[in-house]
């Protein structure tokens, strides 16, 4: 997946989705990123609750070397790191409203409409991690770069 990379002078920025396993929610990971790797970060979206898997979308900014080292540090700690793609849309013709996507989405972007049980996709909750693309049996979810 091509990453979104912006070159600003010598610093580059990279948007990534971080999945925190339950056991790591309490670790001071972002603090280490600033202190040890001199990276700036912008939290674009976060959902972290104690005792559950956490999810954070961040933009990291720093020199190419620090950025690579920082990402390596994140992966080594056991975090799942995914590049953030641009946009996920649903092909309404293709969607059958089965609901296989619901438990795959880490951001809770899919929900069942009470009563009708039609599957709703919330654009604003989507973090564009792309996990639903291949988990959708009729392949109704589309990734746009």
């Amino acid at each position, binding site marked *: 997946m091509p990453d979104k990379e912006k070159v600003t002078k010598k610093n580059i920025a990279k948007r990534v989705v971080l999945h925190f396993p339950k056991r790591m929610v309490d670790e001071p990971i972002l603090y280490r990123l600033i202190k040890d790797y001199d990276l700036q970060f912008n939290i674009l979206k976060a959902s972290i609750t104690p005792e559950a898997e956490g999810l954070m979308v961040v933009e990291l900014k720093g020199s190419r070397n620090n950025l690579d080292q920082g990402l390596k540090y994140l992966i080594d700690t056991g975090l799942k790191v995914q590049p953030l793609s641009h946009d996920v849309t649903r092909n309404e013709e293709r969607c*059958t409203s*089965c609901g296989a996507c619901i*438990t*795959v989405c880490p951001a809770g972007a899919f929900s069942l409409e009470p009563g009708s049980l*039609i599957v709703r996709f919330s654009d604003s909750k989507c973090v564009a991690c792309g996990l639903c693309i*291949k988990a959708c*049996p009729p*392949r109704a979810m589309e990734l746009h770069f």
Partner: protein
Amino acid sequence: MAKTIKEINEKIKEGRAVIVTAAEIIEIARQDGVKKAAEKVDVVTTGTFGPMCSSGAFFNIGHSKPRIKLGGGRAYLNDVPAYAAFAAADLFIGANALPDDDPRNRNYPGDFNYGGGHVIEDLVAGRDVRLAATAYGTDCYPRKKLETWINIKDLNNATLFNLRNAYQNYNVAVNLSDRTIYTYMGVLQPRLGSAGYSSAGQLSPLFKDPYYKTIGIGTRIFLGGGIGYVAFPGTQFDPTGPRSENGTPRSGAATLCVIGDLTKMSPRYLVGTSMLGYGASLTVGIGIPIPILNEEILKYTAITDAQIFAPVIDYSGAYPNREPEILGEVSYAELRSGKIKVRGKSVPTAALSSYPRALEIAFTLKEWIKNGQFLLTEPVAPLPGPQSGVSFKPLTERPF
């Protein structure tokens, strides 16, 4: 007051039959009571829409000039292998067939973006499909190679013939292991992180006729958006499992073998399906009318999701190893609420079958019957019941 199928058909022809969906009958029976509802209602239409892997289609492509004998040769439709082992111009394609060069699970979990189910959908949608075939050549069928576009409108026959569809009930799949697993029940999150299920529940044909008192061999049905028939009991048909007091089975139980004219079907109800890490399949829409012959049959059709139970099974251990262990039972009402309780843990649920599309099928069938374009049929022979001696045998290996 008992009715016959013949009497109901007369009422349909006269436009005075009362037809309701499997969802509507629940409310009617609740309000009017079973006795009154059975007098009022003539037909209840059911529906189901989910991945049904044991599906496939037969084609007769017509004879080329000069002639080629496909039987005993090799044939591909859009690079997906078709079964060429009949006479000269007949082919079969199964929903799970994959192109020879598909990486499958070598690149785990495999994508399975295109397979036999997708070929069937493409044909039904009226799209051209590439047929490539090789044969050995005979005096009467000299040709050895054929490469041509084909289209469903030019075929002599295109027949959907599914060996096992419309499972009466199905497992709820969970994952007790520490890693994500990729199954035919969907992507299952580790440590009871999610549960996959697949049934239309209170809309599903065989839940609403749990002892097969009206659905039998020869029953005319809605199949893939067209008209089909129950051809036989489906493979793995097993009426013997445990049942609730209301008659509904608490495990897989019955299945249907169905057949119908593919040329009259629609891609809305036959959808090529890709199960990540598992394979390609076909999602099939089926609807079956249930004639309300008496109060007992009406009572079955009014069964609700809260009264139907499915077993919860670990697809990281018990299922692959064919161990009988179940982790509990949950109702379809609980499954549809979005959360079930397994081993004291709240587990989010995800369906593979579409409830809204199943409802749409039940509604469409209701309209067909209302308009007089679909009449009910008497079964030619019954499906085997719980006392029939029919059951589901595992494979006992005999190494040689």
